């Protein structure tokens, strides 16, 4: 139970801040960004090259995931819809929601 509470506290502490993918996430080659309350959470993640990142829309309104340089672009994601992209090359990938352009975030690939 304590572990659960600590885990929840840790999630709360990192959900609005920078976030580096844990060893477990890096090992299975996937990580997740939650779209909730008009924001991407976390706003910044750091992953290794070859990692697949998945966005999940938890909002009631549709959102999109569009990179500034058009390297990836989702369709309109309905509630609980997912969009995945594998980052093969290192770099910083800025992205936004085309429906709500103030929603911005980034993926740093090392």
């Amino acid at each position, binding site marked *: 139970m304590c572990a659960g509470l600590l885990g929840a506290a840790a999630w709360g502490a990192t959900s609005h801040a920078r976030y580096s993918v844990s060893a477990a996430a890096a090992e299975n080659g996937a990580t997740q960004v939650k779209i909730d*309350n*008009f924001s991407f959470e976390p706003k910044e993640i750091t992953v290794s090259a070859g990692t697949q990142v998945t966005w999940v829309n938890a*909002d*009631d*309104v*549709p959102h999109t995931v569009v990179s500034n340089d058009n390297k990836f672009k989702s369709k*309109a994601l*309905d*509630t609980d819809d997912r969009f995945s992209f594998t980052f093969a090359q290192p770099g910083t990938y800025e992205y936004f929601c*085309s*429906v*709500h*352009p*103030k*929603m911005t975030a980034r993926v740093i690939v090392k």
Partner: protein
Amino acid sequence: MKGFLGTQASFATDLNLVIQLAMGIALIAGTFLARAKRYKAHGACQASVLILNLVMIAVVMWPHFTTLVLPRIPARLARTSVAVPTVHGILGAVAEMLGLYIVLAAGTDVLPKAWRFTRWKLWMRIEMALWGIVLGTGFGTYLVWYIGPHR
């Protein structure tokens, strides 16, 4: 492009909202022109709003509706984020078509006499009431989609 009203909306959406409010004011001003018996100015004012609204439908509202709302009907129709814009879209289409009919019937000779109504005031008042409801549901759509809370 980011909007200018401080919400989550895009520039086009914010611009559409401002133009819709301005058109609502213009329609009310147009009714005062009719009361002052300035019928030509009244007709020009109301017709200009209808045509501008057609442009806004074509450029902003219809593309948003078809990509973001229509695919969620009927599965998500019970949700506020789908129900409000759906009601807005349906009533808005009726208001636009009725308005165009009134302009054609009252301001031109395009329609045959048999197709024209005679109770002008009644239909124009219905149109104004309908437009008001459409404006309200449009503002409701903006609130739900770009301000929230939405759960």
